[in-house]
């Protein structure tokens, strides 16, 4: 399951980066999405959230809302890195990390 979610996040990230002409070299768990040294600005994060929610719905058959009360109040943002986002999606879908 982790691999499936990882693929979803990477697919979404590649799509957003391609749309915005952002260079993406060997993305992986440690790739920083947002914040200092991050690939995306706030508009990019909005687009990424929309893209990944759709991919989760299509590939996992689940409706998830990534920007919920929990994610917005977390000390460590689930949108900080690819790995953090994968962990958060697994939590939302009830899968063990």
């Amino acid at each position, binding site marked *: 399951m982790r691999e499936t979610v990882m693929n979803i996040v990477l697919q979404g990230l590649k799509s957003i980066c391609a749309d915005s002409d952002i260079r993406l070299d060997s993305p992986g768990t440690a790739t920083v999405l947002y914040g200092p040294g991050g690939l995306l600005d706030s*508009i990019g994060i*909005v*687009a990424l*959230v*929309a*893209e990944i*929610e*759709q991919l989760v*719905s299509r590939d996992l058959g689940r*409706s998830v*809302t990534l920007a919920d009360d929990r994610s917005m109040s977390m000390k460590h943002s689930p949108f900080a890195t690819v790995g953090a986002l994968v962990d958060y999606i697994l939590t939302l879908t009830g899968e063990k990390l």
Partner: protein
Amino acid sequence: MSRVVLVTGTSRGIGCGLAQHFLDQGCKVAGCSRGGSSITHPSYTHFQLDVSDETAVLAMVRAVLETHGTIDVLLNNAGIASMNHLTLTPYASARKIFDTNFFGSFLFLRESAKAMIREKAGRIVNFTSVAMPLSLEGEAMYAASKAAVESLTRIASKELAPFGITVNAVGPCPVSTDLVAGVPEAKMQALLLRQAIHRYAGIDDVTNVVDFFVSEKSAFVTGQIVYLGGVGG
């Protein structure tokens, strides 16, 4: 290719008229209301839900996307009213008005916008009312909920502009629908006299403004509030 139009509050009144209008234009229309639908058309799909039920809204938007692949136009029409002096307004009534008029609009806007962001295009029309600019006595909660919708419209227009999505609002003056059925005729006539044009609006008056907002040519029109009947903002 025919556009996919999502209309809330299609059981009767303006929402029903809007759904019929876009079906007549060859669009695929998804509608919703708390009850069943009176619309029978091969291109119409009805969802029975409360617009302030987040889970139900997510399920409807997901179902529309699974069926049609996109949402081109959102018409956030669903609304309720309850005339009362504010000192006699139960808290539960105030909450219910905001749940439907504001939070329902917010939920559909948020979820539809996510689909539109992926397409980098979309048209959203929210529904306000002349009750807001006229500050009508007895309509404190209704007008306040519409003021919130107008603020949502203006800010959403800025936040969604980078994605090619326009967000506007139309503010009908009274239409002869169930929404005003309980209001005494004398009060309605007094209200009509406060408009520049002293008559009820027809569904065609509403669809005319909506057509302008959702036109593919209106890509440079966003964050606008248009009231009918010559009422100023």
